[in-house]
């Protein structure tokens, strides 16, 4: 539930016998982002590669492969990088996929900046089984495919009004992971002011439109109600501070209201928005210090403490034990 099965998971707004699409996002699990991770390469320099690299991981497709067993070929999977703190992307890693034919699908990665775009990896096979097919091209590596979901949380406890006694809902779940190893220099050269977010775009009526987006963990799930989830997904981070909810108040005010209701500080709304993942790759990665996110970072306990001002401090679920110490870092699928 970092952003699992939240909008755009549900597809249709239903009232009585009437139902209508609630517009983009369309609710395709293939483009439903679950989590974004960014961390310093743990084995940096130990694998014969030059040091100075980062791992960017964007996961989609909760409960995979139950709901879908491929990437969406008409979609864009984007990891956006802001280098100067204006919440506007300066660099984008765009990942796209061929149509799946039989059990074959391939991915391609482009790095886009103001100077144009360059393909950094192409024809990378998607992994559908237990083995991790890794494609290497120069300083870049890509894994794309089915993987153990690294996220850990007592989701049922959350749904059951914070009765955190049910254990880790995600212990046996999978996702479709996109894992990129990139040289830090490809992130722009200004680590102190770098932040990231993940975005999916889908083809709708012949045009690419915004679908889902994720910066920090669980922001949309915890703070946005009803159709505001979709409004929020459709925004760019640079709009987060001024855009209005369906109630006609700013998202900042809405977040502040929820924080107050949870016992937290309303001022935290201005920290949580814009919803981007700060990532200073010149310093150790630690979500608790608002710097990137490792697989084992207990984002739920950190967030619970923060938004409840210590009222709740843990969901009693430890990190998974199947993380790898080498690329692609996410464990084998269940």
């Amino acid at each position, binding site marked *: 539930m970092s952003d699992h099965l939240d909008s755009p998971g549900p597809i249709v707004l239903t009232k009585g016998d009437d139902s209508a699409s609630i517009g983009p996002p369309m609710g395709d699990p293939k483009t439903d982002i679950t989590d974004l991770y960014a961390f310093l390469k743990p084995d940096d320099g130990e694998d014969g590669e030059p040091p100075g690299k980062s791992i960017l991981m964007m996961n989609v497709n909760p409960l995979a492969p139950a709901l879908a067993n491929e990437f969406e070929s008409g979609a864009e999977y984007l990891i956006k990088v802001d280098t100067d703190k204006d919440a506007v992307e300066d660099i984008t890693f765009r990942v796209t996929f061929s149509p799946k034919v039989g059990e074959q699908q391939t991915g391609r990665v482009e790095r886009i900046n103001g100077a144009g775009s360059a393909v950094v990896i192409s024809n990378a096979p998607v992994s559908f089984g237990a083995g991790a097919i890794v494609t290497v091209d120069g300083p870049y590596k890509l894994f794309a495919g089915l993987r153990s979901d690294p996220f850990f949380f007592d989701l049922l406890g959350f749904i059951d*009004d*914070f009765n955190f006694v049910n254990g880790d809902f995600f212990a046996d779940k999978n996702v479709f992971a996109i894992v990129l190893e990139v040289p830090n220099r490809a992130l722009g050269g200004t680590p102190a002011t770098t932040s990231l977010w993940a975005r999916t775009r889908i083809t709708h009526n012949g045009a690419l439109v915004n679908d889902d987006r994720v910066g920090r963990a669980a922001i949309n799930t915890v703070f946005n*109600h009803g159709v505001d989830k979709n409004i929020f997904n459709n925004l760019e981070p640079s709009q987060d501070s001024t855009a209005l909810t369906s109630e006609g108040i700013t998202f900042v005010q809405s977040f502040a209201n*929820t924080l107050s209701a949870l016992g937290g500080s309303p001022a935290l709304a201005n920290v949580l928005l814009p919803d981007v993942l700060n990532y200073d790759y010149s310093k150790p990665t630690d979500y608790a210090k608002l710097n990137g996110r490792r697989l084992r970072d207990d984002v739920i306990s950190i967030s619970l403490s923060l938004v409840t001002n210590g009222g709740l401090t843990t969901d009693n679920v430890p990190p998974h034990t199947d993380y790898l110490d080498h690329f692609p870092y996410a464990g084998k699928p269940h």
Partner: protein
Amino acid sequence: MNPVDRRNFLKLAAKGSALAAAATVMPLSGVLKWTSQGALKFRAVAGLPRNPLPTYATFVVEGSVDLDRGTGLITKSLYAGAPPAMSNILFPGTARTIRIASVRRSGNQVRLAGAVEAGEALTARENRNVTIVIDTSQKVAHADFLGTAVVLKVV
């Protein structure tokens, strides 16, 4: 956090959540009808979690009972999405099938008692013996989700 702390937290949290409450009270669809004399079919839903958090999932209790024989089959399920945008995605491990063994009517209330099917695993706070109360005048149902009492709407 112990259970008392948790309840206090929720109580405190709910005080400041008028806006959140307004945003999560949504139209619910369901069915409550006497399909024939002595038979009741119903469907009740509730958004979870409750205030002040945004609704994330829909808890559905539905089924039919033979009021004369005191038997029936009820299911409890949890689906992704808030009630107005409920999906057909069932949360794994949350579905329960309850075989009703007793039906008691008292005024506008129908009290159903039964047991979760033997093969279904329960979580720590659940009881295999289940009671569901339907108030036909209020059009609400009282049932438990993982052991926590929940009021569901039938419309």
